[in-house]
C-alpha cells in the first residue's frame, strides 16, 4: 500500500518537493515513471522515425486504446485519443452538421475554452447560442434541472447541449444523468465535458447515455499533459472527424484521429503506465478515500482559519477532490460589483495574487473571482497532505496581517 502525501511526492513525482502544489486540477501532474515512459517513446521515435511512424505507431495506438477504454467503461471502438478535452470538443462541434437556426446550449459554469468554441460556432455557422445562468447562490440541483427544462422546452431548435460532468469553475459535480435524461426528452444531442473525471470518478461511458464525451487523462489519471479521450456513440462514428485532417478515412473512425502527420503521440502511449501507477497506489477506492477526505478536511480548515465559507452549492454537488473557498474581505482579494447574468465578467484569474503566493510562500494554487467575489480553488491529490493547506492558510493570513 502506497503512502500518500509528501513522501509519495518525493518518491514518485517530479514536482519540486521543497514547494507546495495545490492545483492538480488545472494541469495535472504525471509521476516520474510515466514521464520516463513517455521519454522512452520519444527516444524510439527519434532513433528510427520512419519505422515508428510507418510500422509501430498504429499498434501502439490500438493497444493503448484497449487499456484506456477498459478504464473508462467503454468499448474500444468508441474511443479515440485527442490532445485534450478542448480539442475533443472542437472535433465534435466542427463535425456536426448545424443548420441555420440550430441551437447549442451551455451554461454560466461551462469552461472558458468551451464558451469560446461555441461563440465561434455561433458567429461562423449561424448557430444560436443558448445559455442557462446558474443561480448564485445555488440552493439545489433542481434549480439547474428546472432551468434546463425551461430552456429545452422553449427552444426546440436546440440541437446540442454541452454538459459538464465536473465543472472547473466553480468546481461542481453536475447532475449529469438527469441532464442527459432531459436532453433525450427534448431530442437534443449531449456532449459531456468530462475534463476532470477520469481518475476522479469511476466511469461507465457506454452506459452513461450521452452522445459524446471528452475527458483528460492528464488531470486526475496521472498521464502526461496532452492525453485525453474522445468517446463517440457508434451511430456518430462516421460523422465525427478531427479538427485537423491528415488522413481521411470514411470507414474507420480511429484512423483519422490516429494519423495526425508525423506528430508525437507519445503522450497517448504513456497512458497505460499512468493507469498502472494509479492502480498500484491503491486504485480508485484508496485514492478516492484519501483525496476526498483530504479535500473535505482542507476546506474545513481554510474556512475556519479565514473565517469565510465554501462556494454556496448543495452538498451533493461537491466534487470529490476539489473545493472553492471564499477569500477574506481584503484588497488582496478584490471584489467588484457584477450582476448574476454578467457573462463577460463571470470568472477572472487573479494572476498577481497567484504570483505573490508562489514567489513569497512557494505555494501554487488558483485564485480567481467569480461573480465579482474572490475565491481560492484547492485540489487534493495523492501527493498532498493537510499540512499543505495549513501552509496556504497561514500564507494568506500573513498577507492580511501585513496590510494592516
Amino acid at each position, binding site marked *: 500500500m502506497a503512502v500518500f502525501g509528501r513522501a509519495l511526492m518525493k518518491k514518485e513525482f*517530479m514536482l519540486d518537493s521543497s514547494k507546495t502544489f495545490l492545483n492538480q486540477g488545472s494541469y495535472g501532474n504525471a509521476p516520474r515513471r510515466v514521464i520516463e515512459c513517455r521519454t522512452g517513446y520519444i527516444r524510439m521515435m527519434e532513433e528510427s522515425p520512419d519505422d515508428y*511512424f510507418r510500422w509501430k505507431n498504429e499498434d501502439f495506438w490500438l493497444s493503448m486504446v484497449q487499456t484506456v477504454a477498459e478504464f473508462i467503461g467503454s468499448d474500444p471502438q468508441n474511443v479515440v485519443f485527442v490532445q485534450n478535452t478542448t480539442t475533443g470538443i472542437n472535433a465534435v462541434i466542427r463535425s456536426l452538421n448545424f443548420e441555420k437556426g440550430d441551437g447549442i446550449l451551455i451554461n454560466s459554469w461551462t469552461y472558458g475554452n468551451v464558451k469560446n468554441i461555441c461563440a465561434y460556432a455561433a458567429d461562423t455557422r449561424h448557430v444560436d447560442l443558448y445559455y442557462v445562468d446558474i443561480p448564485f447562490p445555488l440552493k439545489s440541483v433542481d434549480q439547474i434541472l428546472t432551468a434546463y427544462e425551461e430552456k429545452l422546452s422553449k427552444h426546440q431548435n436546440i440541437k446540442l447541449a454541452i454538459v459538464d460532468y465536473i465543472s472547473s469553475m466553480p468546481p461542481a459535480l453536475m447532475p449529469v444523468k438527469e441532464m442527459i435524461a432531459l436532453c433525450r426528452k427534448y431530442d437534443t444531442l449531449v456532449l459531456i465535458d468530462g475534463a476532470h473525471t477520469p481518475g476522479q470518478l469511476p466511469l461507465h461511458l457506454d452506459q452513461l447515455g450521452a452522445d459524446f464525451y471528452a475527458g*483528460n487523462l492528464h488531470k486526475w489519471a496521472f498521464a502526461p499533459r496532452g492525453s485525453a479521450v474522445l468517446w463517440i456513440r457508434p451511430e456518430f462514428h462516421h460523422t465525427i472527424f478531427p479538427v485537423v485532417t491528415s488522413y*481521411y478515412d470514411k470507414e474507420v473512425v480511429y484512423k483519422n484521429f490516429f494519423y495526425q*502527420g*508525423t506528430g*508525437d503521440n507519445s503522450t497517448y502511449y504513456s497512458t497505460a503506465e499512468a493507469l498502472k501507477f494509479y492502480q498500484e497506489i491503491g486504485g480508485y477506492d484508496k485514492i478516492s478515500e484519501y483525496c476526498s477526505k483530504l479535500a473535505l478536511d482542507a476546506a474545513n480548515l481554510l474556512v475556519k482559519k479565514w473565517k469565510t465559507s465554501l462556494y454556496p452549492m448543495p452538498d451533493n454537488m461537491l466534487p470529490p477532490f476539489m473545493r472553492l473557498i471564499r477569500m477574506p474581505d481584503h484588497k488582496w482579494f478584490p471584489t467588484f460589483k457584477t450582476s448574476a447574468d454578467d457573462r463577460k465578467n463571470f470568472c477572472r484569474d487573479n494572476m498577481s495574487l497567484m504570483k505573490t503566493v508562489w514567489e513569497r510562500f512557494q505555494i501554487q494554487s488558483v485564485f480567481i473571482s467569480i461573480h465579482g467575489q474572490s475565491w481560492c480553488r484547492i485540489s487534493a491529490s495523492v501527493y498532498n497532505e493537510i499540512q499543505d493547506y495549513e501552509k496556504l492558510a497561514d500564507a494568506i493570513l500573513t498577507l492580511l496581517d501585513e496590510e494592516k
Partner: protein
Amino acid sequence: MSFGAEIRKDFVLDSKTIFVNHASCGALPLDVYNHRLGLVQKMESSPDVWFRLKSESMWKESIDTVAEFLGSKPSNLVFVKSTTVGINAVLRSLKLGRGDSILISSWSYFAVKDTCHELERQQGIEILYVDIPYPLKSKEQLLELYETMLQKHNSICLVLLDVITSVPPVLLPVKQLIAICRKYGKLVLVDGAHVPGHVEANLEDLGADFFTGNLYKWAYAPRDCAVLWIHEKFHGAIMPPVTGYSFYGEGEMWKNYLYQGHGDFTPFYSVGRAIDFYRGIGGREGILDYCSSLVTKAADLLVTRLRTFHYPLPDDMQTPLMRQVALPKLKKYPPVIVPPGEVKRKIHNMMTLMEDILNRFGIMCACVSVDNRAWIRLCASVYNEISDYEKLADAIATLVEEDEEIEV
C-alpha cells in the same frame, strides 16, 4: 565541420540503421533532444509557473528567433504543430463554400489533398487540380498550366502552392507562380513544409497571403514544431483548428495559437536550440555544400548501378537535398498503375518494399510509386556519406537478382 559518420553520433538516430530519408521525419540532434527534455523537466517540476507565468514569454522569445531565421516579422508568425495543421487553420478559417474553388496540384502532399476533400465534403468547395505531366519539360510549361487553369476557372478563390514538393521532390518557381496568382487576384497559401533549413526563406518578401513550414524537417527542431505565417490583413481571420482562447480581436492573434488547451509545447520552445545547432554546423551554406553534392553523387551512383534513370526534371527544378531515381522493374514490388487523369491518388508509398529493405538490409529509404513507376526518393543529410548509398545500391541489386528467379 566533419560530416558523415563523425557527426552521426551527435544524432539520436539508431546507429544500426542507415537513414537516407531525412525528408519524411527529420532527425533530431542529441543536443536539441536533451535540451527539450530539460524543458520538460522544468515544466513538470512547477507546472502552474510554467503555464501561467512563463509560457507567453517563452513563446514570444522563440517566435522572435524563428522569425529572424525565416525573414519574417514576429507579429506575422505563430507556431503550429505541423504544416498540415497550418494548412488546416487557413483553409478552415476562410469562409469558402459552394461556388468557391481551391486550386492544388497532382503533386500536392497527400494530407493537403485529404484536407481539401474533407472541406469539399463539409462545405461544398470545389477542388481543382493542375495535372502536372510526365515528364515536365520546363518551368515555363508549369507556369503555363497554372495560367490556363486560372484563366479558365473564375471560381478559384485560393491557390495552394508548394515551394518544394515531397514526391516527386521538385523545387517549384514559387515566386513566378505567386505572380500569376496575383495577376488573377487569387489568395495564395504556400506549403513550405520543406523550406526551413533547406532553401532560403524570406517570408516578408514572398508575396503570399499565408505560408506554413516545418522546423522539424531540415532545421533540426523536435517533432511537433512548425510555423504559420499570416499576412497582416488576415490576422483577425485565421483561427487555429482548435479554438481555445477568445478569438478575433480580443487579445492578440498569437494567443489564439498558444492557448490550445493543455499540452506539451516544449518543441516550440526548443527551436532556438535547433537553430543554434544548425548554424553551429555551418548553416545553410555549410550544410548544402556537403549535402547537395552528396545527393547528386548518390543519385548518379544508383542510376549507374541499377541501370535506370533520374526522375525527369528540368535542371533548375532539382531540389538541393533530394533526388528521385527509378527503380528497376521488380515483379515482387509492382508500382501502382493509375489511370490517366486520376490526380487525387497519383502518389503511393511502397510500404512492403520499404519494410523489406529496412528489415533485410538495415536501410531506411523512401520508395514511392508515381507516374506508374517505382522510384526511390533519396535525401542527403549531414550524417550521410556515399557508402550509405553504395549499400543501398547493393541492396536493390540483390532484390533484382532475386526477382529474376521469380516466375511470372
